[in-house]
């Protein structure tokens, strides 16, 4: 029951320091941080712009790497799935970041790659601007940039 009061000072003082994140381990806090408007606008613009020219693609990749603060492919999402506004019959489109970096639009009855398919249902939902697909999880991004892990 009896606590040593002197010790408490030390305990409380610790709060000032920020825990340093060890490299290689990504905390939920980091992965769930609010996404920037720039990033959101960029992804939303995929429908409108044609990114066939290499420069547009490079810009896109650069912006994504900037958003995640790393160019390391392993900590970037495999890809991004979002609702396609090209209209019927297109339903969703994917941005494959894992290497080929291809934008692909999918029709209603077309099946996607297994990794992306699990994000399809939520990507179609109006509440989410886009879904980042990782190997072991998907991250849902709302219009305001807040992220939710699933």
């Amino acid at each position: 029951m009896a606590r040593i009061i002197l010790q408490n000072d030390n305990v409380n003082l610790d709060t000032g320091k920020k825990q340093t994140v060890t490299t290689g381990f990504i905390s939920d806090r980091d992965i769930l941080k609010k996404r920037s408007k720039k990033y959101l606008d960029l992804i939303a613009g995929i429908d409108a712009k044609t990114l066939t020219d290499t420069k547009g693609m490079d810009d896109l990749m650069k912006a994504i790497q900037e958003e995640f603060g790393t160019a390391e492919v392993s900590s970037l999402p495999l890809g991004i799935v979002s609702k396609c506004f090209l209209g019927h019959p297109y339903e969703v489109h994917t941005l494959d970041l894992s290497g080929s970096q291809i934008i692909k639009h999918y029709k209603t009855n077309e099946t996607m790659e297994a990794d992306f398919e699990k994000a399809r249902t939520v990507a179609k939902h109006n509440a989410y601007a886009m879904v980042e697909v990782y190997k072991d999880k998907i991250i849902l991004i709302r219009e305001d940039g807040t992220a939710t892990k699933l």
Partner: protein
Amino acid sequence: MSNQVISYADLSVINSALRSISSDMSGVHSELGSLNFKQDQLESELTKLADAFADFVEADLKHKSLQLAETRQGNLKQDLQIKFGYYAEVRRMATGILQGVDTGVVSDDTLRFTTEEVMIKAPGYWLAPALVALASWIRNDKNVNEKALNEALKRDDYKTTLFFMLVMRRLTRNDASLKWLERYFMHQNPQNLDREFIIILEAVTTGVFPPASRQLMMSNVKGWLDQLTQGDTFINEQKSQWVKFFEASGPLSDGKYPLLEKFADNWVKLETSLKEAKIHGILNTHFKGIISSSADFSKGVKVQLDEILSLLVTNFDDEELPLQEQVRLNQLIIQMDGDKNAAQAIMDAEKHIFDEKVDFLQLLTNASFNPELSGATKVTQALAVSISQPWIVEAHDTFTAQSRNRIPQTIELNVDGFKTTTKDGSEENELLKKQDAFYQTVLETELGKLSFPYGGVIIGALVCLLGVWAFSLHPVAGLVGLGIGGVLIWNNIKNFNNAKENITENVEERKRKAKEVLRGCIAETVDYRKEHTTEDANAEVLRQLLNSITPEDFSSVSKETARNII
């Protein structure tokens, strides 16, 4: 060859002997039967006796342990009296002094004399110097007060702090109680909070302590939050608890979609999904109820604070606990009529309640889920919700995402063997056409199963031929033959046609009913999707509400309460 005459033997003697044996045997049988019956009776008697004996042994054991418990309790109480008897005296005195101070009827000299005597009588007990300090404080003796206070703090810093904090609050010494509160907060470890902390938190929230204490509390709380939310562990723990809480708040099914319930293969999923969507609306009212309540609970809190104070001065000290626990166990054994196991179970449960220590985030979550159970009021619930707001929002987001991910994309209908899927019921005509085609195939296969009665017709034809041949014998015979043959052929064909008609009618009937059902299902699908979308949209409303909660917002409400009280 000679005829041998075999005389018939007279077996009547043997026969009668056999008969008498058999009658004897039946006598033996009946004897055996009665013996068996008697044995059964005996056996059941014996079991009864064994049961009674076992009962007796159990009762005897209980009785003995009851007697033992009574004796032991007496001995233990004596032990306690010898070792810690004066503690009880100090406690009685403490209550008396507090009441005396309240009413102001005890003279300073009496207070001084009695408290100092206690000090001598109870070495090592923190309450004794605390009482001396209190008495000297009342008569303005700073020197003795400081010395006594030091001693009390040395003996048990935490309890002394809590004691003086509560006493100063009772006597409305604002500055002093604030200082003690500060010290109390320093004692708290956010990862391991005491049970009574929730009441202190409550008291500060409802404005029972001076207004400045709010500031103090909030800054402490902020520090703790920073400390606890650095890693993922504590937050994730709370988040998953909230998600579970959200999941558990689902409504009961209302049977609004009877056709889908019957004809949709994935109804269970559909129903769960709708239930989950409905949760948002329920939670919306729940949270609105929490943050809009601003009743004055301070009176109840004051009573609770005094309760802590009286517990503090009446409860046993750590030193006496082992003995007191044994006394309690024996007491429980006596209470349970000697049932040791039952007593131990109660004891364990009691212990668990008092041993319970929680981290700060857990305390907040407990207070938000069920304020009554964790000893808090609506005001603290609102505070807890507002502090926990960041991870409530996160948990809600997760819950929403999970449930949205689980929304069945199609409704799998199965009407009378016709399997089809629909997304939102918009393709009614298409589905009806498909159903038409389905029944066309059904009709074809059913008719295909029906074979033309060739055999019967051929037999009829043969009979006819026979009749034609019979004309040459006799015209009547020929006519009869022809007639029979004709009737046979006609009958067979008629039966065949009847069966065909029956099948067609049957399938038509099935089709008509199935069409109605399919239409109904499609109509329900449209309603289902509509309701689901409406309920799902509530998630965004709830999210806005949750996002609008901030600790600052809430404090304005309770500052109002605080102002009213002071």
